[in-house]
């Protein structure tokens, strides 16, 4: 091989490899760097005694946690009481929060655990107390598709559909309902759910699979008799 030709070729390969290495290194660094918690500042201020900072956290997380608790309990009044207790508990415990997880994960863990405890105490004796369905659902693309393609959804009125869905959800076990709520309704990824519930991602996936099969069975009745 002619060295005058080989040298530039080696240089090119060196440059390429160094470029790839640098890119891989920067990617690795980006992965190694812990993601900054967007609530870190508010948490720190709360920990140092600034109650207004906690108010901001309450305002930020109330709608999201309301959805989580409501879809697990299917009762507005229970949800309201639970939500008050969840924030009260979070406020008391926030001084001990060391930021090992994000505040988002931490407060969702408190919410799920408190709701699961409440559901165990409540047992099976309860009544549905459902919120009104927002009128904007009529403009939802998915709803329009469902009403166009699925005959039971088309035939049933909106409140009937809501009642059937909630009844089917309440037939699931509390743990399965928690996973279904977080994944399907709240749109959380498996990894986040596993952190909140402190179980493996595999457990989350298997619970989800089992819950979907159960929901298929429960909603089969709805498919056969859309109007009861």
């Amino acid at each position, binding site marked *: 091989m002619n060295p005058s030709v080989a040298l530039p070729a080696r240089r090119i390969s060196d440059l390429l490899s160094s470029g790839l290495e640098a890119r891989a290194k920067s990617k690795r660094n980006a992965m190694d760097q812990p993601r900054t918690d967007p609530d870190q500042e508010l948490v720190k201020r709360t920990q140092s005694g600034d109650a207004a900072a906690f108010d901001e956290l309450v305002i930020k997380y109330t709608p999201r946690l309301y959805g989580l608790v409501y879809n697990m309990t299917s009762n507005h009044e229970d949800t309201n009481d639970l939500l*008050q207790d969840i924030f009260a508990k979070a406020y008391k415990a926030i001084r001990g929060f060391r930021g090992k997880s994000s505040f988002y994960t931490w407060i969702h863990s408190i919410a799920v655990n408190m709701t699961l405890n409440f559901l165990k105490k409540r047992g099976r004796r309860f009544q549905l107390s459902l919120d009104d369905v927002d009128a904007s659902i009529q403009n939802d693309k998915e709803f329009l598709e469902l009403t166009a393609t699925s005959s039971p959804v088309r035939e049933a009125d909106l409140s009937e559909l809501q009642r059937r869905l909630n009844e089917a*959800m309440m037939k699931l076990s509390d743990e399965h309902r928690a996973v279904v709520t977080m994944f399907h309704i709240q749109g959380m990824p498996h990894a986040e759910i596993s952190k909140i519930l402190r179980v493996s991602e595999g457990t989350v996936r298997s619970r989800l699979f089992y819950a979907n099969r159960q929901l298929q069975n429960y909603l089969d009745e709805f498919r056969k008799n859309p109007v009861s």
Partner: protein
Amino acid sequence: MDEFNDSEIARLLRLKRYEQPPLGYFENFLHEFHRRQRDELLRQPLWRICLERAHNFMLQLNVRSLTSYPAAVTAVLLCAAIISLKIYQQPETARVALQSPPTISVPASAEGEWNLASPVATQILRTQPVRSFHESAQTHRAAPPRYVLDSVPVSYEPTFRF
């Protein structure tokens, strides 16, 4: 279609997002939260409030991280105590060892009167080192009287050998 498939179930469940609490619920939630917190605070006895405040204060100080300091200080003090005890004990034993064998000494005043006429050498058995005049004067006042004993028995035999 026989039954809802997974994607249809997912789409149906996503519709539950449209179930919303009454208008103004989220706006009033914070006020309700504050009101409940105040009520709960007023219901608590004073000692409990104080205890809670103290607990919060300790948490703020991060007491857990400070627990190593007292442990380290205690360990250092213990080591210092042990070392100092050993240091003080060593000279004491040395002094006792020096003092223990009885020393035979002749008082300075008696040396001048030593002659052949007095065949008996009166020797004083002393277990204490010779003290200065002032010291002995001070101790004589306070200490009980001391007795002088002859360490060598009295003998009138001549001590010369041929």
